[in-house]
């Protein structure tokens, strides 16, 4: 009797599992993405579904999962069956290549622009009429300015902010590392609230009215203005910022098994296509496609973008030097 009972439990578990079956021809794919891309992919998906139907005559359903991209990468390694990833952190895709071979070793070479169909940069959002006259990074370390951006330890968004500030400080101080540390130390001490994610920081800034400056992706800055009132908030693009790439990759290990390799690749290609780039740009991301770029040129002010590879020796090194436990970030954030 006990045996039967246990068997019944086990059977019900297996029957209830929606993902345990491995279909030959999947009718759906899962795009695992970062937390602030919901609206973007909610717009792209129906377009791609129509495009795919037209091209192959097949129906496809696209499911979305959104959370912090490190959490997502961990979930994939622990068994979340993603067909493709669209992240905002190069390292989070890289770890999928390094641990367990979920994506191809040379994933950055398989698609144009280091497999990043669009990009953005850390920019500032300030309150109506810019009362604190914020123009550039050096305004952010003033004593009378309070900042809001998420915790660089838990948010990829904030890691860009941290590195952009660091790069700015290096450049304005003749690459003096000590001065740059001092600069980011002051910057971090001006933070009013550390949320764990980018959207939490926005809520603190907009709904809770905390701080004078919100630092987040330029695309997000514009999305917030569109949502909460273009007149109530002002965008400030600093003189120098950091190139924030949004890498994409097919999770080959899963896609091969599920037979979704073709459609997953087609999906990523679609993001690179003119139609796809139009949608991406309409969400205030900067794109590479020449025509789309020209069309939206006046939307994006000129800014000098520094690459992580140029100043910090690549993401892996930036992580080891700055973000690892006991790294520069931990050192500058000392007890006051």
């Amino acid at each position: 009797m006990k045996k039967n009972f246990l068997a019944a439990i086990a059977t019900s578990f297996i029957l209830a599992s929606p993902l345990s079956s491995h279909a030959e021809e999947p009718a759906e794919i899962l795009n695992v993405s970062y937390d602030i891309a919901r609206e973007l992919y909610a717009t792209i998906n129906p377009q791609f579904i129509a495009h795919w139907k037209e091209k192959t005559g097949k129906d496809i359903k696209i499911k979305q999962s959104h959370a912090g991209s490190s959490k997502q990468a961990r979930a994939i390694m622990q068994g979340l069956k993603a067909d493709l990833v669209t992240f905002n952190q190069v390292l989070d895709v890289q770890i999928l290549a390094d641990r367990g071979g979920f994506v191809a070793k040379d994933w950055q070479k398989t698609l144009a622009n280091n497999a990043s169909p669009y990009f953005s940069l850390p920019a500032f959002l300030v309150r109506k009429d810019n009362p604190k006259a914020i123009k550039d990074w050096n305004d952010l370390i003033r004593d009378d300015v309070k900042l809001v951006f998420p915790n660089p330890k838990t948010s990829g968004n904030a890691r860009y902010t941290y590195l952009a500030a660091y790069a700015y400080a290096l450049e304005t101080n003749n690459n003096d590392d000590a001065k740059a540390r001092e600069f980011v130390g002051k910057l971090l001490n001006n933070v009013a609230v550390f949320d764990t994610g980018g959207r939490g920081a926005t809520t603190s800034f907009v709904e809770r009215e905390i701080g004078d400056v919100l630092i987040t992706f330029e695309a997000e800055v514009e999305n917030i203005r569109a949502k909460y009132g273009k007149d109530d908030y002002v965008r400030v693009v600093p003189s120098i910022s950091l190139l924030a790439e949004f890498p994409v990759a097919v999770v080959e290990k899963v896609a091969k098994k599920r037979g979704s390799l073709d459609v997953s690749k087609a999906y990523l290609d679609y993001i690179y296509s003119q139609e796809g780039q139009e949608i991406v740009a309409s969400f205030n991301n900067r794109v590479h496609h020449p025509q789309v770029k020209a069309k939206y040129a006046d939307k994006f002010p000129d800014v000098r973008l520094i690459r992580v590879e140029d100043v910090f020796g690549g993401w892996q090194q930036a992580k080891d030097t700055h973000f690892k436990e006991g790294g520069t970030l931990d050192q500058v954030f000392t007890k006051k």
Partner: protein
Amino acid sequence: MTRQQTAPASQRPHPAIARLKRQRRNKQRGLIAIALLFAFFVMGLPVLAIFARAFQEGLGIYWANIIHPETLHAIGLTVLTALIVLPINLVFGICAAWAITRYTFPGRRALITIIELPFSISPIVAGLCYLLIYGATGLVGEWLDTYDIQLMFNLIGIILVSLFVTCPFVARELIPLMEIKGRDEEEAALTLGANGWQTFRYITLPNIKWALLYGTILANARVMGEFGAVSVVSGNIRGETMTLPLQVQLLYDDYNATGAFAAATVLTLIALLTLIARSVIESAHPHHH
């Protein structure tokens, strides 16, 4: 309307006694007022705040947020999870209570402690533990993965962590009660020729049914409301593995605070219904805490 239950038998009041009584009554009123104030500020206000924020933009918008397909799906998934978890918990709770209160065996004390363990474990840590064991690279998960059995990031994962966080509830209610009732009645039934099942059905069950219901109601509230542990193992797939508490956070992060608070009112209502049900059971059968 305050009155002391423990007042000595009344007699014609002497002026001095009347004064003492008045003083006592004032003291009582003061204590009651403090208690009510505390309850209002710590617990009443947050509930009011949720409803105030949800209805801030009007009833129409509130309703539109509730009947949004993703919110409805989240409600459905949450109910489904509860429907699967609660019966399993019920069976486990009864079995554990029966074994613990009807027999002596080595490790009995340890078993009680282990059952209560989930109460003192942070839900995030609980979720993490599950990933470490049942995830694709976990000790058990890796082996299951070779048979294409996936336990995390789907309904099963949500059910498993929900079982973890709620497993003490039923057993905890039953154990003290069954210990007090003892096993004499059951043994008598057996000597009179009833079989095991009949004994349980006609002797034990009537004695414990209210405690059973009480434990189930508490467990239900916890299943439906669990956030931390579920968020670790859910995979956050929109319209598929989003339970109601996860949906609240998602809406909050989608710059839809009103929608988040609207979804939160559903959870709050479930919580309030739980409290009412508890209160009703309590007043019908006052002798178990």
